[in-house]
């Protein structure tokens, strides 16, 4: 069977999950991997819960359906824990990465996860407010994702992020995003 990593993103519309999923996919391509990134399209409005999916593999990917058994779950808004079972179907040695101020031990207990599932927490919103000056936690969370999973090369990601941002923003915004990614990479804690 092919070596396939399946990532599920949970966020609220407007938090940039789709953009993050896209840049992660581009990063994987730059490392000559195969990938898919697809948002679950629905009648979206700002703040509504959304899902997005990313697949990364060394081999061409055949599957075209939603991800039910993710090995990585990324949650961009911890208030979603009250409304959605974000860890539904997660594999036994999976990892959950959350944007939250709560320590990972507490989150793990609250979600009732087995010891084998890793929980990684980072205050991506706080970092984004400090650096980017807006609550856009999508880029910092990728810094944490790169550290915890080792699935993507952070330098390649930052290069592509700069390329994407430069279409709409100046160097100041690119630098602020780089600072956010680096801080989250540094500050993420795991239980």
């Amino acid at each position, binding site marked *: 069977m092919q070596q396939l990593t399946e990532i599920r993103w949970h966020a609220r519309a407007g938090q940039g999950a789709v953009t993050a999923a896209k840049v992660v996919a581009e990063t994987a391509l730059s490392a000559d991997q195969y990938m898919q990134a697809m948002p679950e*399209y629905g009648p979206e409005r700002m703040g509504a819960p959304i899902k997005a999916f990313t697949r990364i593999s060394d081999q061409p990917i055949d599957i075209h359906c939603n991800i039910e058994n993710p090995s990585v779950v990324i949650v961009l808004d911890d208030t979603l824990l009250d409304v959605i079972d974000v860890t539904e179907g997660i594999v036994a040695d999976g990892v959950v990465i959350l944007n939250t101020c709560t320590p990972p031990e507490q989150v793990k207990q609250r979600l009732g996860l087995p010891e084998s599932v890793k929980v990684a927490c980072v205050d991506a919103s706080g970092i984004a407010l400090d650096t980017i000056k807006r609550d856009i936690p999508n880029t910092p969370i990728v810094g944490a994702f790169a550290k915890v999973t080792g699935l993507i090369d952070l330098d390649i990601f930052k290069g592509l992020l700069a390329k994407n941002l430069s279409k709409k923003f100046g160097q100041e915004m690119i630098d602020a995003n780089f600072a956010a990614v680096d801080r989250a990479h540094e500050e993420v804690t795991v239980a």
Partner: protein
Amino acid sequence: MAEVKTVATTGNLVVAEAMRQCKPDVVAAYPITPQTTIVEEYAKFVAQGRVHTEYVTVESEHSAMSACIGASAAGARVMTATASQGLALMWEELHIASGMRLPIVMANANRALSAPINIHCDHGDAMGARDTGWVILFAETAQEAYDNTIICLKVAEDPEVLLPAMTCLDGFITTHSIDRIELFDDETVADFVGEYEPANALLDTDSPVSHGCFAGLGGPFFEFKKAQRLAIDRSKGVVERVGAAFSELSGRPFGLVESDMMDDADLAIVVIGSTAGNARHVAKEMRAQGVKAGVVKVRCFRPFPQAELVAALKDAKAVAVLDRAESFGAEGGPLYLETRSALYDLETRMPVVNYIYGLGGSDVRLELIRQVYSDLSDIVSGSASPSGLVYLGAR
């Protein structure tokens, strides 16, 4: 030598890219989900001055196809794109395009038809157009959507064919997912499709012709239709030839029907579009467990590749046909009806069963495909009889 660029982008954006590389003289289109980003991207090419195309913004799909017909009859290379209700609104024009033998190429982002309203994938729109005289290709992936679009243009414009062609891709699943795709350089595509030399251009004043004229009682209507039938029958060889030439360039396979693990397969799934990938994934799992499972993907639906399908399926012990479209009141879905009919001449006919799946974007979980193979296995072992039509995974 063809240059190749590997990109991470969506099915719709590479269809727009293929259109740009085919250099159409006219694109007349109306936006509709999930096709919108194709025509949006194309409009951007026009605004940037990257194409010479006359881009006609119209007030409906009926007008879009009407404008395409007018432009094509005038002698232009014409392309467009639509989906679902848009394709349905074009219905009468679809017949006119094929009856006037106009090689228009249209992308269709497969989407369910209302009601109830739904923006997600099924093949009901394209299947509704199966008898309109268009060549119809379906893509499994964004890569195939790019490839098929270029292939469609060369097939449509072939002097042996001169028929419109539809290049279909699964709504959202293929249109909006980001995938790894190889694109040719512009020159390679331009050389492959060649310059268009219209056969009967209205604007060719040196040899005046009429198009779409009256052919009523006692007129040649019947013979026109026979000529159309002969043309779409001939198009089969042309699709094969053009596909093979494209395959030579790309290194990617092209078949009217594409088989996986069918050489010694007992259990076969016949399927169209992105679900072929899901079926292949599960068939590999089955193989790992010692079950001889295989997949037959129908890439070209019109002309229907009857002989190729029979050749792929003849040794299977049981066949499941998966339809992402209904043919209400018929024995089963459109692909099932034609597959079953194709197998009629076999000396020993195997059981053939039908599943309707994935309507309105209903997720095609791998579990559902496993269920199909399991049902086939039960039929072969004699522990179950072939069932009637099954709505796969419906609550």
